[in-house]
């Protein structure tokens, strides 16, 4: 039984204590998928730190934060929250680590990478997942024109989905023959987008390159060279011809459609059906010092997530209006609406149903599954960001240190008791989703067997392999 207790006094001198239960943090021996249900942390007391500043990047999946503020959910929890847009993911991460931000809309990879010390080392946690899906890959008009004639068509003449990256191979070869690199953009080295773009390319037989200890560019042995661009600058960078395509969240794929500078070819939902996206990240010591504040924030965000998915998306139009304000996402409402209201526009005139493109609450979207964290860890290992082999147990322990369903449950169970959210919207689980199918390459992901999973990829590091400047070597 591991118990950790943290006592803190707020201005009113209210004592709050937090006990984490046995199945959780620090249990080095618990195996993955043990079948032992994760239980909620016990949280008592009043909010310790009512004035909070939360950071976000101008993407539609920050919606739960904007809605929690604008619909008064934060205020009802006794919180006075300022939402601050950040210039890029690095600035946002430094803000959370440095304490200027109390929490933020984060890439799932960020708290994981910070905890294992890839990039800036800091103990961050993710007690809540903000959404499922929400990204897409866009190609420049030039490249789209080159691949479009080759694509298999449906009866009505529109291209059949999902579009595999193998149609990109001849284009990459042509670029190579002309001595030009084929460049694509993603938003951060440990971003979901990086792993999704890599997954899609590798599934189509294109090597997106490896990272090594000394090389953080990740272009060793690359067919397609990936580089970092902040999300809002993606369309401008594509237009400037620096990159030929990118993987980014909304509204920046729809922006390419509206500006006529590129064509989205595939959504991340088509790469991995219902994949976990952004998380709400904060410092571990913040959650320990201010347990009731953390729970109050989570409750407000969960209510906002529910609001966003309520009545089959009835509130989405209002959400679009709120997000289009200059202090939130700020893009034109019609651009945001093009992906937030159950449809997704690929080319002008090719708008398709995409019910699951942004899921905030349904399908247990908010629950931070350990297996989701482990998937990100496997991809970090697959591409060399984790330089050495790790045991399965290491994957489980790391995931459990970062993803904190106990804190999620403490907040969500409170809402269930108050009758705000239905009991069936909170899963009873050991924190592992079970084997996941629905990947574009047909490989099944089982979070309880990370090393076995890594062995299945034709492109990617296997056990015993490492990366040097000249390429992959077997030890």
């Amino acid at each position, binding site marked *: 039984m591991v118990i950790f207790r943290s006592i803190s006094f707020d201005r009113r001198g209210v004592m709050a204590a937090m006990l984490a239960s046995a199945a959780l943090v620090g249990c080095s021996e618990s195996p993955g998928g043990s079948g032992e249900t994760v239980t909620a942390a016990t949280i008592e007391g009043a909010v310790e730190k009512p004035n909070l500043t939360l950071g976000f990047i101008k993407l539609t999946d920050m919606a739960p934060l904007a809605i929690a503020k604008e619909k008064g959910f934060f205020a009802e929890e006794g919180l006075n929250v300022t939402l601050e847009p950040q210039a890029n993911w690095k600035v946002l991460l430094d803000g959370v680590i440095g304490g200027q931000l109390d929490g933020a809309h984060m890439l799932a990879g960020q708290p994981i990478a910070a905890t294992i010390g890839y990039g800036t080392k800091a103990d961050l946690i993710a007690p809540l997942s903000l959404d499922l899906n929400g990204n897409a890959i866009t190609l420049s008009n030039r490249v789209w024109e080159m691949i479009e004639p080759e694509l298999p068509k449906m009866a009505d003449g529109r291209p059949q989905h999902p579009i595999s990256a193998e149609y990109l191979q001849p284009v990459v070869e042509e670029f190579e023959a002309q001595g030009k690199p084929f460049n694509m953009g993603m938003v951060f080295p440990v971003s979901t987008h990086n792993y999704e773009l890599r997954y899609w390319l590798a599934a189509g037989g294109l090597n997106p390159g490896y990272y090594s200890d000394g090389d953080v560019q990740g272009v060793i042995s690359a067919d397609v060279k990936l580089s970092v661009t902040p999300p809002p600058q993606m369309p*401008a960078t594509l237009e400037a011809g620096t990159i030929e395509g990118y993987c980014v969240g909304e509204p920046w794929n729809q922006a390419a459609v509206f500006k006529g500078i590129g064509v989205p070819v595939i959504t991340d939902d088509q790469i991995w059906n219902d994949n976990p996206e952004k998380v709400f990240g904060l410092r571990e010591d913040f959650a320990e010092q201010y347990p009731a504040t953390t729970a109050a924030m989570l409750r407000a965000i969960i209510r906002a997530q529910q609001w966003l998915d309520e009545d089959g998306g009835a509130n989405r139009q209002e959400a679009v209006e709120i997000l289009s304000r200059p202090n939130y996402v700020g893009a034109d409402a019609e651009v945001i609406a093009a992906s937030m209201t159950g449809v997704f526009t690929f080319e002008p005139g090719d708008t398709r149903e995409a019910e699951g493109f942004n899921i905030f609450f349904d399908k247990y979207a908010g629950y931070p599954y350990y297996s989701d964290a482990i998937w990100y860890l496997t991809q970090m290992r697959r591409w060399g960001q984790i330089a050495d082999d790790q045991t399965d147990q290491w994957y489980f322990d790391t995931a459990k240190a970062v993803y904190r369903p106990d804190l999620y449950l403490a907040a969500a169970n409170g809402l269930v008791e108050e009758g705000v959210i239905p009991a069936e919207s909170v899963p009873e689980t050991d924190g592992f989703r079970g084997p996941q199918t629905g990947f574009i390459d047909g490989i099944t992901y089982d979070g309880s067997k990370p090393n076995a999973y890594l062995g299945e990829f034709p492109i990617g590091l296997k056990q015993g392999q490492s990366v040097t400047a000249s390429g992959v070597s077997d030890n």
Partner: protein
Amino acid sequence: MATAFVEPSDAAKEPDTGAEAAATTSDMAAPKTQVVGEGERPSADGPSALHIRMKAVGEALLWPFVGIVGFLALWAVLAPQVDTSLGSLPGPAEVVEAGAALYSEYSAAMDAENAFYEQQDANNAAAIAAGNQAGVRNFDYAGPPTFLDQIFTSLQTVALGFLLATIFAVPIGLFAGLSTRFNSAINPLVQIMKPVSPLAWLPIVTMVISAMITSSDPLLPKAFVISALVVMLCSLWPTLINTAIGTSSIDKDLLNVGKVLRLGWFDKLTKLVLPASLPYIFTGMRLSLGVGWMVLIAAEMLAQNPGLGKFVWDEFQNGSSQSLARIMFAVIVIGLIGFMLDRIMMALQSLVSKNRTV
């Protein structure tokens, strides 16, 4: 006088800039004085005097007017032809509209803020009435900063940076002007530091400040301190160099008189050196403020300090159809504020120069 604080050409250039600026000023002011002068002399002639006066005023206003109208016309004609991915470049009319929209956003934000406080007061009153003291909240309104808030933050940041720069630069400059050895010692450092861009300082300042301010609720927000320090680092050089030149070029006779009078170190500084070099110091400060204001926008963009720089960056990131017009409006406001700051410094400068000649 012969202290080699700066390259000879450079040394000649710095005061020149001041002189040049002063010349421009008198140019600008010339028509006005002329107006008054001519208007007063023939005042006995009655209507014709008024006529002449009107004509002079007209003349003085005509050409700036022509310049501005010409620019606006060119802008209005050319802008729609530049096609960007955010639509065509906004013309003057769209920019004015953007300004109006920013103003109405400001009023709306004020209303929301008042509503927030009213609601809070009402809630507190209800909580007290119900005997629930713990329910009383005194939150500050946490709405997004308005355009006016951003201007205000920018002015505060540049003021702090400029103040720090002056506090550092003037004493060092004075000392460098008085001591040839000290001057030679710091000269290479100054020459190397002077051309460094704010963007290069920023990561260093950010890391140092982040390490130094560890309190979770610091007196001044980190981003604010970071931008102010970057402004200081970039804007302190003109003041330093000009102070050194001013101090080193004091009339030797004055210093000799000081020796005869057996003035102490402190008296020498306050009675001789400072008054003699004040015009130089103010010329330097004016240049520093100009540099500081320019640097500030870049620093705010990167440090994410709320302010005009962040406003521009956020709008760029928004990429909505209104973004370009709003950015252009901000550019005009930045220009006008820079112009205003320069005028204030110029007024101070001429005041100081006048005192000296008297």
